[in-house]
């Protein structure tokens, strides 16, 4: 069985790249091949201009594996020092770097606790800290927000946004499509070891023929009159009288213009008009659901 086949992928420097795919698509295998954790049977890859597993390239990379674990006998601080030494960080700079990372991932108060006592969220934050310890040029993250509560996810997202702002290239494997959509500039979708789609988030998530119109002062009578004249129009549940009301119009530009004209004729205030786009999740489900030719 081939885990990956005919994969041709280029991640530009400075990009935040999201790799998507269902379980067993080959995402983790690809990451392991890039890091030299697994060996390819054929093909060629370069990471930071060097072959996979190259020691010099790995010194410039950070990696957070899926389901990572740390030696249970180490405290959080000892674990960071251990991985810092392995990354080639020397004292005394290493100590201040470890202190800074513990503060950044909010584990400062837990630095002397053994990692076996850490919760899943704390482990994930420690994982982020070790991955960022050597200030990498390339950060590879495999499910970084897996098993983390929404606040923890938000914190990790902030760290990644900050890191991307510093010019770090981020390669993100994730099942959480909303995370990928928010963070990534480019996305690739793998299915059964094949690259089935690649592009920017904007390229992948096309505009739909659905428009959202937010109104104020729309009465039920006016809405009924509009719906009788425009078939593709629906509305959310009414709130307070005279309050905002969101309309959804399925149709083309002509229908939208007609709706706007009718609303203006009836003195209904138009607060916003937005064309809906397919979400990354819609695209993903569609692609993954397609049967192989």
């Amino acid at each position, binding site marked *: 069985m081939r885990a990956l086949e005919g994969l041709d992928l280029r991640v530009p420097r400075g990009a935040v790249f999201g790799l998507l795919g269902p379980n067993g698509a080959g995402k983790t295998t690809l990451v392991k091949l890039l890091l030299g954790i697994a060996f390819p049977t054929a093909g060629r890859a370069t990471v930071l201009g060097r072959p996979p597993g190259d020691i010099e390239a790995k010194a410039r990379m950070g*990696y957070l*594996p899926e389901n990572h*674990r740390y030696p*249970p006998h*180490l405290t959080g601080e000892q674990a960071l020092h251990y991985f810092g*030494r392995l990354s*080639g960080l020397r004292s005394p700079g290493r100590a201040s770097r470890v202190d800074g990372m513990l503060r950044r991932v909010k584990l400062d108060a837990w630095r002397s606790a053994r990692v076996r006592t850490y919760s899943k969220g704390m482990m994930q934050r420690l994982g982020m800290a070790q991955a960022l310890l050597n200030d990498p040029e390339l950060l*590879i993250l495999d499910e970084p927000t897996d098993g983390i509560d929404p606040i923890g996810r938000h914190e990790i997202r902030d760290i990644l946004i900050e890191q991307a702002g510093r010019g770090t290239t981020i390669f993100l494997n994730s099942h959480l499509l909303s995370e990928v959509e928010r963070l990534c500039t480019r996305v690739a979708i793998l299915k059964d070891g094949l690259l089935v789609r690649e592009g920017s988030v904007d390229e992948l998530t096309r505009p739909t023929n659905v428009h959202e119109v937010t109104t104020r002062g729309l009465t039920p009578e006016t809405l009924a009159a509009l719906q009788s004249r425009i078939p593709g129009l629906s509305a959310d549940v009414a709130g307070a009288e005279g309050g905002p009301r969101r309309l959804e119009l399925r149709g083309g530009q002509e229908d939208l213009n007609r709706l706007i004209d009718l609303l203006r004729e009836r003195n209904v205030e138009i607060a916003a008009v937005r064309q809906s786009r397919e979400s990354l999740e819609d695209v993903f489900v569609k692609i993954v659901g397609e049967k192989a030719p």
Partner: protein
Amino acid sequence: MKVAAILLDTCRELLYRKTLWIYSGIVSLTLLFFLLALQTDVAGGVIASLKVFGLEGHASGGGFTLDSQQGGGSAGLTAASFVQGIQIAVAFVLYPLGIMLSVFATAGLVPSLLERGLIDLLLSKPVSRPMLFLSRFLGAVLVAAVNLIYLVGGLGLILGIKTGVWNPGFLLSGLAMALYFACLLGFVALFGVLFRSSAVSIMMTAVIFVASLIVRWPHQNADWPRLITGRAARFVAQGLVETLYHALPRTYDFGQIVAALILGRGTASLGAMLGSALAGGAALAVATYYFSRIDF
């Protein structure tokens, strides 16, 4: 620095597992016994009087008795023989125990290294696979060697101060045991990387230990092939015995080496040490090569 980091982590892991603390405790009790309980007077290289916990030692037959009778002395027992006797006794009890506990303690080092989630992290760091594996091996040998040095150094020092006899052979016997453990650990590492299980590693190492003792007899006795009637069977059996003898650490020979070093009799068998080192080195080389080539 990277090697030092792995060595430090290996030592921490072994200390965390506490198995070797048991050995250190037994050694400490042994040293305390000789430090506090044993009192000797040596005159002209001969034991003039000997007391253990205040009881007088008397030569009786080929051995020693302890009783409350005063005087009598030790019947011309030289201090050197006395010290060598103690060292032999301690070596043949505490060396095998130390080796056994060290194998128990270190058998999990490779399987724990290979655990999913940890090995991915370690291999993502700028460290070569052989360096990672061999540093772990070296850390285990160092911890076991420190324990042996604690025993031979401590006991040699206590007996030296109390009797004036300094036996460098005893210190060398500790180093010989450290070498033997390193040879055995080569196999522990090989089984660890092949089976990824501490329990299987321990069992397989026990098999190696017993097999190395068993094959020594047919290797030393030229007549044994006569017990096998078929020519082909004899050829195969002889080949198997010789292969195993040369491919395994030479446990029995190491026992003789330890005795020879402590008693200062003859020379230690360099051939046996070299052969064992080659066997352990070969097992370690195969383990390192396999570790360097597998996908995680």
